[in-house]
């Protein structure tokens, strides 16, 4: 009963904060500056990790399918085809965002949490700045802009990873290419993009909420950043089931 009440109040406070966040910025010039900065910080700085993880996962998926599923009476392009579908439908969108929730979520929550406990957010409020709007909106929109790009990069990096296994003498490049091209449904690509945008909103808004509402000191900032990662990961998993159901 008590936990139910607590989680309901938390949802209420989250909605309230989003209400303050999602309004027109006071100064567009300042907003654009922050927006570009956040895209760089949250997105550009994640490109490396996205490329590396996707490359290896693409390679491993390809190898696993080759070893476990491929058999003489199956067309040789099945490996490429299945790798593409897994990357496009689940890995590059959902799992990649789950990994990014760890990196980006803790980053956002600890940054805002530190600003809260060192009274930088109070200083903004006293100046008459809508601090939620100024700090959080650029993060949400920045991540929502950059996430589809990261997901696209992830798909391509995964395919390159798959190609790289051909040097180990498993499937040839042309077989893989044939599989990658086989009955491609562009809608699946757009599903990935929609998921990416939704997850980006979940990660950035939930982590911002956790960081923005910290009370106390450095220990609470640490707790809030762990909380941010756990909560946004769980929400992403729920959203995944939900979105997969309605999109496909």
């Amino acid at each position: 009963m008590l936990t139910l009440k607590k989680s309901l109040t938390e949802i209420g406070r989250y909605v309230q904060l989003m209400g303050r966040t999602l309004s027109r910025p006071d100064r567009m010039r300042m907003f654009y500056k922050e927006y570009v900065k956040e895209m760089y910080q949250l997105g550009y700085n994640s490109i490396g990790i996205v490329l590396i993880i996707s490359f290896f996962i693409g390679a491993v998926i390809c190898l696993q399918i080759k070893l476990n599923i491929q058999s003489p009476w199956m067309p040789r392009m099945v490996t490429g085809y299945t790798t593409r579908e897994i990357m496009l439908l689940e890995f590059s969108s959902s799992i990649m965002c789950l990994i990014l929730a760890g990196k980006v979520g803790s980053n956002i929550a600890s940054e805002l949490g530190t600003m809260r406990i060192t009274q930088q957010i109070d200083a903004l409020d006293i100046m008459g700045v809508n601090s939620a709007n100024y700090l959080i909106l650029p993060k949400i929109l920045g991540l929502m802009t950059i996430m589809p790009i990261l997901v696209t990069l992830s798909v391509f990096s995964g395919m390159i990873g798959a190609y790289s296994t051909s040097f180990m003498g498993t499937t040839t490049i042309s077989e893989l290419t044939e599989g990658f091209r086989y009955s491609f449904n562009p809608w699946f690509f757009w599903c990935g993009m929609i998921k990416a945008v939704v997850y980006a909103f979940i990660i950035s808004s939930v982590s911002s909420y956790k960081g923005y509402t910290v009370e106390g000191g450095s220990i609470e900032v640490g707790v809030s950043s762990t909380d941010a990662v756990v909560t946004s990961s769980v929400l992403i998993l729920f959203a995944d089931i939900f979105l997969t159901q309605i999109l496909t």
Partner: protein
Amino acid sequence: MIEVSHLYKSFEDKEVLHDINAVFENGKTNLIIGQSGSGKTVLLNNIVGLLDPTSGNIFYDHVDFCALSKRDKILLRRKMGMLFQSAALFDSMTVLENVMFPLNMFSTDTYIDREKRAKECIGRVNLSGAENKLPSEISGGMQKRAAIARAIALNPKYLFCDEPNSGLDPKTSIVIDELIHGITTELNITTIVNTHDMNSVMGIGDKIVFICEGRAEWQGTSADIMNSDNKRLNDFIFASDILRKYKEAEDEEAAKHHH
């Protein structure tokens, strides 16, 4: 003018402020003094609206601050400047960017003018030369001064300073005190300063509110303060030997004249 009326503030069941009544006038440097932990910061935070009073009212030029809508509160706050006890500079920005921030946000001047204004404020707090340093690269006292420059950049109508000269040497303290006092009279603004520095009390205190254990124990001017017979106030201000000796000498003098 800022008026505090029957202000109470409790955290859970711990009462921190008890029935505070005070009037802070324009063009005067109003000081809130008291021991560490007496409730000065909590009082100031209630006045500026960072905390909500448990009961009581705050009036800004006769407008009830607590009753204002969110939007009107934000508009009123654009006329406030505040220096926090911990400076609270934006740590991702340089000193110049910090001071320019309120200007960038609210002023319609050109970039050149905004930069000029920011540099002028930085000059007034003797920080010229440190414009391009980050807050983590300057000393605590310099951070305080940068925060003062940020607070005055937009020529506020109400200025709040939470211990402006803690962590500053006596000489810089006086410069800062004079700066705050100067701006207050020059622009005829309402200034409230939290302090426990007796030099400031004697130097710039036009009106003084003494807080003791969450109660406004004594109010008056710096001229009255030496001659008050409030026991708790005397304990507070004559805690330092020098002032006590000064007071004793003065009393002796008075006694001689009496004979």
